[in-house]
C-alpha cells in the first residue's frame, strides 16, 4: 500500500481500477516546405482552425446542457484564444517566413506564450495556460488528423490517471465511466478543478509523478477530501473507505433535509449556528444552508494578489452585499488578519522577513501600526451597517491597550461618518477574538470594553501549547483535547456569561464532528462553522442532549490527560 499526498481539487471518495491515459506527447518534427506548397500549408491550417471552431460549438452545447451558462464562459475564452492573432496571424506568418509545416509553426507559436506564462509568479495566471494547451491540442489533432484518444474506450468504472487533464476532457468524464481523476499537474484554481467540483467528480491533482507510479489496472483509492491517493490499498483500507463512501452518500440525503431546521439539541436547547465566510464568491452557496448568520467574515482575501490596499468603496461594497444577503441575521466582519509580509506588496513599509510570523506583526498589531488601514476598514464596515446587522471583530488582541486603541479609531470613524451625514445605528458591537492566552486569562478586564467574544480555537491551541502545526516534528502535539485547552475554553465561556455577553466559537474545532459535543457541553452561544461541514455539525448538535453534554464536560474538566477527555467525548 502506497499513500501519496496531492492537492484536494474536488471532494468525494472514489475506489476502483486505474485507467492510465498515456502521456500523449505529440512529437512534432520540422518539415521544410517548398515555396509552391506554402499556400497549401496555410490553407490546411485554416481548415484546422475551422474544424476546431466546430468542436468548440459542440462542446458549448454540452456545457450549457450539463453545467449552465456560468461555465459556458470558458468556451468563450477558448474561442477567443482560437481567434487570437498569436494563432491566426502568427502561425501563417511563420509558415511563410520559415517555410515550415503548419504543425511546427503552431507549436513554435504556442511555446512562446507558454514560456511567458511559466515565468509568472501568480498561480492564478499561470494556471490559465492550460486553456491555451487545450485549444492548441485540439488544433494539432486536427492538423495531424489523429483522432483524439477518447475516454469512450473505458469499459468499466475506473479512476482516470494522467499527467494533466484539460478542461474539455473533464467535461466528458461523467458519461464515460470515470469515477474520479488523479493528475500530476494542476492546482486548486485551475479550470479543470473548478469543473470537477461542479460536476461532483472527486479529484486529486498536483501529485507530481502519480502517472508514472500508477499502472493501468492498479487498484486505487482516491480521497478528494484529504487530497490522498492510495495505490494497492490493503483490504482494510478498502473496507474503511467503502464504508466512508456509502455513509457519505446516505448522509448527504439525510443532511439535505436539515436546511433551515433550527439548531436545537434533542432536549430543546437552542443554539445559533452561523457560517464562516472566506470570500464573497462563497456567499451564494452559503445562503443555501440557511444559516443563523455569518459568524466570521474573513476579509483577508480583499488584501491578497494586489499592489494597493482595497479602497473604502470596494470594501463597503463587499460588506454591504453580505450584510444585505444575510439580513435579518447578523454578520460579523473581522478586520483583516494579514501578516507583515503583505505590507511591502501593498506598497507600505513593513518587516522583510520575520523569523516567526505567527508571533510577529499581524492582525490588530499590524493594523494599529498602519492605522489608516484600520480606519478605512472600520469606515467601510460602518457603512455596511445600513444594509443589515453588522458587528466588528478584532483579531490577535493580546493586551487591553490594543483594544482601547482600536476602539478609539472606531469611534473616530463613527464620528466622521456621522459628520458626513451617514445615518449610523446607535451601536455597532465590537468584539475580540480570543486566540492568544493572555486575552483568555485577562478576559474579565477585556469584557469591560468588548461587546462579545469569539474564540479562534486554532490559534488559541497553538499558542497555549506552543506548537506550530506546520512543523512536522511537533504537529502531533497539537491537541484540541488537551486538558489545558479545555480548562481555558471553560473559563472563557464562564467569564463571558458572567458579564452577560455572548461567546462564539469560530475555529476549526466547530467543524470537527468529534469536538462538537465538547463545545455544546461548554455552553457556547454560537457555533460558526465552515460551510462544507455546516449540515453535518447541525445533525450532531440535534442528536445530542444538552444535559448529557454538560455532564460529560463536567467530568472531562477533572481529567489530567487528553486521552481520557477524548474517551469521554467519544462515549457520548
Amino acid at each position, binding site marked *: 500500500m502506497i499513500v501519496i499526498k496531492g492537492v484536494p481539487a474536488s471532494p468525494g471518495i472514489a475506489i476502483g481500477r486505474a485507467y492510465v491515459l498515456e502521456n500523449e506527447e505529440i512529437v512534432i518534427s520540422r518539415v521544410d516546405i517548398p515555396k509552391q506548397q506554402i499556400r497549401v500549408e496555410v490553407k490546411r491550417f485554416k481548415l484546422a482552425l475551422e474544424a476546431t471552431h466546430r468542436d468548440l460549438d459542440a462542446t458549448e452545447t454540452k456545457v450549457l446542457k450539463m453545467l449552465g451558462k456560468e461555465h459556458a*464562459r470558458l468556451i*468563450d*475564452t477558448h474561442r*477567443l*484564444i482560437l481567434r*487570437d*492573432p*498569436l*494563432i491566426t496571424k502568427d502561425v501563417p506568418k511563420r509558415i511563410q517566413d520559415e517555410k515550415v509545416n503548419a504543425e511546427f509553426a503552431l507549436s513554435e507559436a504556442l511555446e512562446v*506564450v507558454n514560456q*511567458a*506564462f511559466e515565468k*509568472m509568479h*501568480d498561480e*492564478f*495566471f499561470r494556471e*490559465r495556460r492550460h*486553456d*491555451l494547451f487545450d485549444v492548441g491540442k485540439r488544433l494539432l489533432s486536427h492538423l495531424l488528423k489523429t483522432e483524439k484518444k477518447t475516454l469512450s474506450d473505458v469499459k468499466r468504472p475506473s479512476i482516470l490517471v494522467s499527467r494533466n487533464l484539460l478542461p474539455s476532457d473533464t467535461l466528458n468524464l461523467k458519461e464515460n465511466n470515470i469515477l474520479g481523476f488523479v493528475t500530476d499537474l494542476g492546482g486548486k484554481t485551475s479550470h479543470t478543478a473548478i469543473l470537477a467540483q461542479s460536476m461532483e467528480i472527486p479529484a486529486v491533482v498536483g501529485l507530481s509523478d502519480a502517472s508514472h507510479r500508477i499502472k493501468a489496472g492498479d487498484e486505487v483509492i482516491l480521497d478528494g477530501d484529504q487530497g490522498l491517493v492510495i495505490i494497492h490499498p490493503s483490504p482494510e483500507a478498502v473496507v474503511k473507505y467503502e464504508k466512508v463512501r456509502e455513509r457519505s452518500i446516505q448522509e448527504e440525503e439525510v443532511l439535505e433535509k436539515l436546511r433551515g431546521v433550527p439548531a436545537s439539541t434533542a432536549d430543546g436547547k437552542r443554539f445559533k449556528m452561523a457560517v464562516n465566510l472566506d470570500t464573497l464568491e462563497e456567499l451564494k452557496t452559503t445562503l443555501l444552508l440557511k444559516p443563523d448568520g455569518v459568524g466570521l467574515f474573513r476579509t483577508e482575501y480583499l488584501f491578497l*494578489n*494586489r*499592489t*494597493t490596499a482595497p479602497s473604502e468603496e470596494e470594501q463597503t461594497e463587499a460588506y454591504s452585499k453580505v450584510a444585505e444577503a444575510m439580513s435579518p441575521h447578523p454578520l460579523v466582519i473581522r478586520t483583516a488578519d494579514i501578516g507583515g509580509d503583505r505590507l511591502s506588496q501593498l506598497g507600505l513599509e513593513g518587516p522583510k522577513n520575520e523569523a516567526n510570523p505567527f508571533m510577529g506583526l499581524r492582525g490588530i498589531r499590524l493594523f494599529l501600526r498602519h492605522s489608516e488601514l484600520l480606519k478605512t476598514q472600520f469606515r467601510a464596515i460602518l457603512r455596511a451597517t445600513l444594509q443589515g446587522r453588522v458587528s466588528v471583530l478584532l483579531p490577535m488582541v493580546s493586551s487591553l491597550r490594543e483594544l482601547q486603541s482600536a476602539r478609539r479609531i472606531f469611534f473616530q470613524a463613527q464620528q466622521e461618518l456621522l459628520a458626513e451625514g451617514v445615518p449610523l445605528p446607535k451601536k455597532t458591537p465590537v468584539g475580540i477574538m480570543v486566540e492568544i492566552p493572555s486575552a483568555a486569562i485577562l478576559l474579565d478586564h477585556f469584557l469591560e470594553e468588548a461587546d462579545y467574544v469569539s474564540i479562534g480555537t486554532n490559534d488559541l491551541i497553538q499558542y497555549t501549547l506552543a506548537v506550530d502545526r506546520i512543523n512536522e516534528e511537533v504537529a502531533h502535539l497539537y491537541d484540541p483535547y488537551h486538558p489545558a485547552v479545555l480548562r481555558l475554553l471553560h473559563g472563557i465561556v464562564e467569564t463571558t456569561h458572567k458579564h452577560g455577553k455572548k461567546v462564539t466559537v469560530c475555529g476549526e474545532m466547530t467543524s470537527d464532528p468529534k469536538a462538537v459535543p465538547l463545545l455544546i457541553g461548554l455552553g457556547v452561544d454560537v457555533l460558526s462553522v465552515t460551510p462544507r461541514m455546516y449540515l453535518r455539525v447541525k445533525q450532531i448538535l440535534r442528536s445530542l442532549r444538552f444535559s448529557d453534554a454538560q455532564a460529560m464536560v463536567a467530568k472531562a474538566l477533572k481529567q489530567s490527560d487528553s486521552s481520557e477527555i477524548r474517551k469521554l467525548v467519544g462515549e457520548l
Partner: protein
Amino acid sequence: MIEKEFKVTTKLGLHARPASLFVQTGSRHLCKVTVTKHHNGEEMVVNGKSVMGLMMLAAAHGETLKVALEGPDEDEAMRAFEKLFARKFDED
C-alpha cells in the same frame, strides 16, 4: 496616435474574462491597439487585440497599463475603453 494610462481595478487583475472583454472592445474598432506595462524597469508591449498577449502581461490589481491607439476611429475606441475601465469590467 493617442495614449492613455489605466489602472487595473478588477480583483484578480486582467485575467481571462476581463482580458476577453478588453479584446472584444478593441476588436470592434479598426484602429491598432497596443498595451504596455512597466514592470521592474522592463517594458512589455503586447497587441491589445490578443487575449493571450494581454494575459501574458499578468497585470495584477492596482497596476497601471498604457493603452495606445492608432487608426481612423481611435477617439471612439478610447471612449469605449474608458467606459470599460469605469464599469470595472462589469465585475460583480
